[in-house]
C-alpha cells in the first residue's frame, strides 16, 4: 500500500489542510502540534477503521472545539492493483465516498464504500503488517514481533524450500516427548529413571546383604570344621606340654638343693670375711688414736700463741671507747640546754598569739550580742504588727470613700434649725436637749428626726429619699473603714500610717542585725564562740602563772617569733653535733666488743685444745690396756686364713650350679608351664567357639538363606538389566533430541537469515560494523550484539529499544514492499530518546530503507530528521495559513 495524499477538513484543530506524499522514499511532514501533525496520523487510522455513523467518544473528540461541523478525512492511496480516493465525514451530514480510479473506475458511497475498501485492503494489504509498521509517538516503543503473514511469505519464498512441514512438527513433538520421559527440563534424571535406579540400588543392597549373611554362615560352617580338626591337635599339644613340664620339674628340684648348699657356704664365707674386716678395723683404729694424739698436741700449741697475741689490741680499743663516751656526754648536755631555751621561746610565741586571738574573738562576741538584742526588738515589733502597705492603701481608699459619702450626705440632707424663743426642754431624736432663749440648735436630717416639745407637740422631720440613700452609703462606708481599721488594730488612717512606718523600720533593723550576726559568727555558734574565748583566756592565765620571771617575756608576738626562729637554728646545729658523736661512740663500742670476742674465742680454743689432747692421751692408754698392739696383729692373721678356706668351698658349689644351667632351666620350666596353660586355654576357647558356632548354625542354617540370596541376586540382575536398558534408552533419546534440536535451530536460523540480514544491514548504519541481532521464533527481536557484547533486548536502554524497533520495521517493510505491496512505515515523531549523534545515523538508515518502501514521518521537531538525506519535506501550513488556503 502507498499513501499519495491526505486531506483533513474540520478535523480537530485543522480547518482545511492537504498533504501530497511521494509513492516511494521518505516523506517528512513537519508542522507544529497545533497544526494537526498528529491529527494526520489519527485521521489515517480512523478513515479505514470507523464507519461514518460512528459516534464513539474519540470520533466526537475530532470535532473542532466550539464549532458544530462534521470532521472529514480524504485519502488518496494505492494498494496492489487498486488506486482510490476515499473520503469520510462523521457527526454532521456523515458520509463515506469511494472513488476507485484503477484498474477500473468505481464509485460507491456509504456502507458499500466502507465495505469495498475493506475488501480491497483484505485482498491487497497485510493488515497485521499495517499495524506492525506504525510507530506512534510515545507509545509502542517496545519492539513488536514481526510474525506477519507477508513477512513469513517473503521468507518462505527466499528460503526456497519447505524447511519445516507439519509432519516434522509431529516428529519433533514425539522426540521431545520421548526425551521428556527420561530427562527433566533442566536435564536431570526423570522420575521414572530415578525410581528404577532406586529399586535397583535397593535390590543390590538386599542381595549384597543376603550374600554377606550367606558367606558368614558358610564361613561359620568352615570354621566349625576347622575347630573340630584343631581340637585334636590342641589335645595332643596339651599332653606333650604336661609331659615336658613333669621332666623339667624334677631337674629343677635338684637345682634347688644345690642352691641351698650354696647359700650356706656363702653364709660361712661372709662370716669369716666379717671377722677379718673386724680385725682390720681394730688395727686401723689403733693407728688412728696415735695420730689423733699428735694432732691435738699441735692444735693446743697454736691456740696458746693466739691468746697471747690478742691482749694489746683489746687495751687500745677500750681507751678509744672511753674518749668517745666523754665527747658524747658533753654534746648531749649542750643540746639539752638549747632544747630547753627553744621550748620556752616557742611557748612565749604561742602565748602571745593566743592573747591576740582572744581579743579578736571578744570583739566579735560583743558585736553579736548587740545585734541579737536589736533583732529581738525588731522581731517583737514585727510580731505585734500585721500591717502591710497594701492594707494601708485599702484603709486610705475606705477613708476617702467615707469622706466622699459624708460630703454627699451633707449636701443632700434636710436641715432643722430650732431657735428657742424662751428656754425650753425638748427631745431631739430621743435625746433630751435644753435650749436657752435665743439659742439655736441646728441639725442635719439625713433620714428622719423626731423632735418632742414637751407637752406641746411632737415634730417629725423626714428627709427626702435621695438624702436617705446618701446617708445609708455613708453608714456603709464608715462601717467598711471601721472593719479594716479594727483588722489591724488601729483606729483611723493616721494610726495605720504610723503603724506601717514602725513595721518597716523593724524589718530593716532585723535584716541589719541578722547580717551582723552572720558576719561575726561565720561557721560558729555563739556558744562555741564563747567557749573558744573562755578556752583562750584560761590558757593565757595558766601560762602567765607557770612561766618563771626570767628571762622576761618578749615585748610582743613578732619579737617572740624572731627569737624562736634563732633558737631553732642553734638547736639544729647542736643536734647534728650530738648525732655525730653518738655515731662515733657506737663505732668504738663495736670495735671494743669485736676485740673482746676475739680474745674470748682464742681463750676458748685453747681450753678445748687442752681438753682434746688430754682425751686422746686417755683413749690411747685405755686401748692399749685392753689389747696390746701385738695381740691385734695376731688376730688379723687368723681371720685371713678362715676367709681363704670358706671361699674355696663356695667356689666348688657355684661351679656345680653353673653346670646344672639353672637360669636356662628356670626359663624352660616357665615356658613349658605357660605352654601347658596356653594349651588348656586354647582347648577351652576352641570348645566354646564350637558351641557358639553350632548354635548359630542350628538357628541360621534353617533360614533358607541360599534360596533367599539366590532369588535376591536374580532380582538384582533383572533390575540391573532393566536399569541399564532404561539408561541406554535415555542416552539415545538425548542424542536424538540434541541432534534434531541442533538441526532444527540451524534450519530456523537459515529461514530467518534475510530478515536478520536486513536488520543487521540497517543497524550497522546506526551502531557500526559490529552490530547484529538474533531473532526469536516469532520473528521478534531477542538479542542484540554490539562490540562482542550480547544483551537481551529487555536489557537495552529505552532509546536503543526504540531505535531497534524502527530499524526492524524498516527492514520488514523493505522486504515485503516491492512494487505496491507491503505497507508504509509511519513514524509519528519517534526517536525522542535518541541523542543527536544517533539521530544522524538513524537518518542514514531511514534513508537507506526508503529506497525500498514508503516511509512517512510526522514530526513537530524539524531538526530531528534533518539527516534523512533523500527525504522530501512537506510543511503543514499553520491554521491561519490553511484558513487562507
Amino acid at each position, binding site marked *: 500500500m502507498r499513501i499519495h495524499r491526505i486531506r483533513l477538513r474540520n478535523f480537530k484543530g485543522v480547518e482545511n489542510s492537504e498533504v501530497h506524499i511521494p509513492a516511494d522514499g521518505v516523506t517528512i511532514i513537519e508542522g507544529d502540534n497545533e497544526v494537526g501533525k498528529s491529527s494526520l496520523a489519527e485521521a489515517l487510522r480512523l478513515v479505514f477503521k470507523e464507519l461514518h455513523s460512528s459516534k464513539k467518544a474519540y470520533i466526537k473528540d475530532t470535532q473542532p472545539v466550539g464549532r458544530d461541523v462534521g470532521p472529514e478525512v480524504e485519502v488518496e492511496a494505492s494498494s496492489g492493483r487498486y488506486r482510490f480516493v476515499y473520503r469520510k465525514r462523521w457527526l454532521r451530514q456523515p458520509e463515506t465516498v469511494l472513488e476507485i480510479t484503477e484498474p477500473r473506475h468505481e464509485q460507491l458511497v456509504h456502507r458499500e464504500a466502507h465495505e469495498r475498501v475493506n475488501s480491497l485492503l483484505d485482498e491487497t494489504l497485510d493488515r497485521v503488517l499495517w499495524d506492525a509498521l506504525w510507530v506512534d509517538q510515545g507509545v509502542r516503543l517496545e519492539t513488536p514481533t514481526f510474525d506477519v503473514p507477508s513477512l513469513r511469505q517473503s521468507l518462505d519464498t527466499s528460503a526456497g524450500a519447505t524447511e519445516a512441514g507439519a509432519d*516434522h512438527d509431529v*516428529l519433533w513433538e514425539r522426540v521431545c516427548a520421548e526425551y521428556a520421559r527420561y530427562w527433566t527440563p533442566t536435564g536431570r534424571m526423570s522420575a521414572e529413571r530415578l525410581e528404577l535406579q532406586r529399586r535397583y540400588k535397593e535390590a543390590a543392597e538386599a542381595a549384597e546383604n543376603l550374600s554377606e549373611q550367606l558367606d558368614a554362615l558358610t564361613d561359620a560352617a568352615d570354621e566349625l570344621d576347622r575347630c573340630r580338626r584343631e581340637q585334636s591337635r590342641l589335645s595332643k599339644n596339651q599332653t606333650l606340654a604336661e609331659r615336658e613340664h613333669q621332666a623339667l620339674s624334677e631337674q629343677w628340684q635338684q637345682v634347688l638343693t644345690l642352691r641351698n648348699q650354696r647359700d650356706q657356704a656363702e653364709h660361712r664365707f661372709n662370716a669369716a670375711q666379717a671377722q677379718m674386716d673386724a680385725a682390720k678395723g681394730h688395727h686401723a683404729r689403733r693407728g688412728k688414736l696415735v695420730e689423733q694424739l699428735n694432732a691435738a698436741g699441735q692444735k693446743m700449741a697454736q691456740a696458746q700463741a693466739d691468746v697471747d697475741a690478742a691482749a694489746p689490741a683489746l687495751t687500745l680499743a677500750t681507751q678509744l671507747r672511753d674518749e668517745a663516751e666523754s665527747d658524747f656526754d658533753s654534746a648531749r648536755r649542750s643540746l639539752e640546754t638549747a632544747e630547753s631555751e627553744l621550748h620556752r621561746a616557742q611557748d612565749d610565741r604561742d602565748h602571745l598569739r593566743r592573747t591576740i586571738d582572744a581579743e579578736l574573738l571578744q570583739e566579735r562576741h560583743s558585736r553579736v550580742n548587740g545585734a541579737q538584742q536589736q533583732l529581738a526588738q525588731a522581731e517583737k515589733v514585727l510580731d505585734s504588727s500585721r500591717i502591710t502597705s497594701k492594707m494601708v492603701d485599702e484603709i486610705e481608699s475606705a477613708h476617702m470613700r467615707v469622706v466622699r459619702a459624708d460630703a454627699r450626705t451633707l449636701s443632700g440632707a434636710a436641715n432643722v434649725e430650732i431657735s428657742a424663743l424662751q428656754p425650753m426642754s425638748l427631745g431631739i431624736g430621743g435625746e433630751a436637749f435644753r435650749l436657752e432663749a435665743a439659742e439655736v440648735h441646728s441639725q442635719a436630717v439625713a433620714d428622719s428626726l423626731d423632735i418632742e416639745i414637751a407637752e406641746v407637740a411632737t415634730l417629725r422631720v423626714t428627709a427626702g429619699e435621695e438624702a436617705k440613700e446618701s446617708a445609708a452609703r455613708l453608714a456603709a462606708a464608715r462601717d467598711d473603714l471601721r472593719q479594716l481599721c479594727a483588722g489591724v488594730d488601729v483606729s483611723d488612717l493616721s494610726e495605720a500610717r504610723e503603724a506601717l512606718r514602725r513595721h518597716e523600720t523593724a524589718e530593716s533593723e532585723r535584716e541589719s542585725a541578722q547580717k551582723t550576726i552572720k558576719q561575726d559568727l561565720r561557721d560558729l555558734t555563739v556558744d562555741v564562740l564563747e567557749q573558744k574565748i573562755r578556752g583562750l583566756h584560761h590558757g593565757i592565765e595558766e601560762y602567765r602563772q607557770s612561766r618563771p620571771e626570767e628571762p622576761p617575756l618578749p615585748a610582743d608576738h613578732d619579737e617572740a617569733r624572731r627569737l624562736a626562729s634563732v633558737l631553732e637554728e642553734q638547736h639544729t646545729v647542736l643536734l647534728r653535733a650530738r648525732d655525730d658523736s653518738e655515731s662515733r661512740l657506737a663505732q668504738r663500742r663495736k670495735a671494743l666488743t669485736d676485740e673482746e670476742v676475739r680474745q674470748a674465742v682464742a681463750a676458748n680454743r685453747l681450753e678445748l685444745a687442752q681438753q682434746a689432747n688430754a682425751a686422746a692421751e686417755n683413749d690411747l692408754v685405755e686401748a692399749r690396756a685392753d689389747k696390746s698392739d701385738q695381740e691385734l696383729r695376731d688376730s688379723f692373721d687368723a681371720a685371713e686364713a678362715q676367709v681363704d678356706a670358706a671361699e674355696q668351698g663356695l667356689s666348688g658349689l657355684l661351679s656345680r650350679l653353673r653346670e646344672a644351667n639353672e637360669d636356662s632351666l628356670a626359663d624352660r620350666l616357665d615356658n613349658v608351664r605357660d605352654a601347658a596353660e596356653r594349651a588348656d586355654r586354647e582347648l577351652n576357647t576352641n570348645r566354646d567357639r564350637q558351641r557358639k558356632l553350632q548354635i548359630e548354625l542350628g538357628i541360621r*542354617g*534353617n533360614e*533358607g538363606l541360599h534360596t533367599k540370596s*539366590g532369588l535376591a541376586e*536374580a532380582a538384582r540382575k533383572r533390575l540391573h538389566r532393566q536399569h541399564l536398558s532404561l539408561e541406554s534408552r535415555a542416552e539415545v533419546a538425548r542424542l*536424538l533430541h540434541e541432534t*534434531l534440536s541442533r*538441526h532444527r535451530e540451524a534450519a530456523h536460523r537459515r529461514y530467518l537469515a534475510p530478515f536478520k540480514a536486513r536488520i543487521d544491514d540497517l543497524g550497522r548504519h546506526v551502531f557500526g560494523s559490529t552490530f547484529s541481532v538474533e531473532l526469536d521464533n516469532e520473528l521478534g527481536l531477542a538479542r542484540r550484539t554490539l562490540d562482542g557484547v550480547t544483551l537481551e533486548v529487555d536489557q537495552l536502554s529505552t532509546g536503543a529499544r526504540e531505535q531497534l524497533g524502527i530499524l526492524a520495521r524498516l527492514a520488514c517493510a523493505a522486504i515485503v514492499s516491492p512494487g505496491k505491496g507491503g505497507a508504509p512505515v509511519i513514524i509519528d515523531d519517534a526517536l525522542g530518546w535518541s541523542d543527536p549523534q544517533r539521530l544522524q545515523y538513524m537518518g542514514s538508515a531511514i534513508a537507506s530503507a526508503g529506497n525500498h518502501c514508503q516511509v512517512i514521518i510526522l514530526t513537530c521537531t524539524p531538526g530531528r530528521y534533518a539527516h534523512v538525506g533523500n527525504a522530501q519535506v512537506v510543511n503543514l501550513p499553520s491554521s491561519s495559513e490553511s484558513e487562507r488556503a
Partner: protein
Amino acid sequence: MKFIHTADWQLGMTRHFLDEDSQPRFDEARLDAVRAIGALAAEQGCEFVVVCGDVFESNYVDRKVVGHALEAMGATPAVDFYLLPGNHDPLDASSVFRSEVFVRRRPDNVRVLENSEPIAVGDGVELIGAPWMSKHPSTDLVGAACSGLETSGAKRVVVGHGQLDSRSPDSLNPALIILNRLEELIASGGIHYVALGDRHSTTDEGDSGRIWYAGAPEQTDYDEVEPGNVLLVDLETDHVAVTRHRVGRWQFERRQWNVTTDGDIDEIESWLESLDDKKRQIVKLGLEGQVSLAQKARLDAMLAHHTELLGAFEAWERRTDLVVVPDEVDIEALDLSGFALDALRELSGRAAAKDDSGAVMAQDAVALMHRLHQRNGGDR
C-alpha cells in the same frame, strides 16, 4: 540287579535369567524329575536309586525345598533313595541332611550315605559311599573310600562325587578322583560300578564301561552336553548294561547368528518357531552383522514376540555385535526433509562409522527416530 544312577539334582537352584513367573516352574520341574526317577525305578524293577551328590543346591536352601524333595522321594515308598552329600551340600556342621526338617520328615526309603562303611542293599549288593564332609576335602575321597576293601562276594557299587583327574587340568587339586586306581579296582574285581556325580553331562568314563557320570536330570546351564538323563544300570558281576533315560524337560539353547539379509532373519525366525515346548526353553542369542533400520525393526518385533513365549530369553552380550545402519531405502521410506533429514543423515553417518565409540548409540538413535516417525498416532 538293576538300580538308577542319578546325581546333581541341585534342588533349590535359582537362575538370574528366570523371572518371577518362570522360576517357580523351573523349581517344580526339578521336583517332577525326582518323582519321575522314583516312578522309573519302580517301573524298571530297580532295587534302589543312588543320588551321587549335590542333591541340594546348598546346605542353606529354603527348608520348604527340603520338605518338597522328601515328599517327592516318599511318593514311591518301595524305591530306596541313597543320597550322597556332595560339594554343594557337604556333611559339615551345617549339613542340610542333619537339619531338623530333613531328620524329622525323612521317609523310610530315604537314606544318607554318611560314611564309607559298606552298606548291604538287597541281595549281595554293597554300596560304598564317599561323602563330602566339607567343601574343601584334601584327598581323593572315592579312592580313600575304596582303599583297604577286603574282597567279598557282594557286587559293590561305589557312590562318589567330584572331578576325575583325567578331565581336570588342575592337577594340583588334591581332591581329584584318580581314574586309574578305580579302573584297577574294577579290573581286580574289588568294585563293580562307580556311580559319579558333579559333571552335569551324561558321560561314560574310562574303558571299563563301569564308571559313569549320570549328568543332571534337569539341565542347569547352556554348556552342558547331553543333560536331562538318569542312568538305568543293570549290574552283574560279569557284565553291566547302562541305559540313558530322559527325565528332564527344560532345555537351554545358546546360538550365534550372522545377520545381514532378510533371509538370515527368516532363518532365525524359523529356528525359534521350531523349538518345542517353548515355555521350558531358555534361549540365549548372539547376533552379529549389519542390518538396515527396517530389518532391525523386524528383528526386534520378532524377538519381542518369542520372548513372551519362551521360558527365558537372553541376549548373548559377548557374542552380539549387530550394526544398524539405515540404507537409502530406509531414508526414503521415512520421507523426511529439511532439518529432520539432516539430523537423520548425521546420525546415520555416526552409526556407520567404524571408529566412532558412539556408533551403537547413534544406531539406536536412528532406530528410535524411525520408530517415532513411523508411529501412527498411538503408542506402540
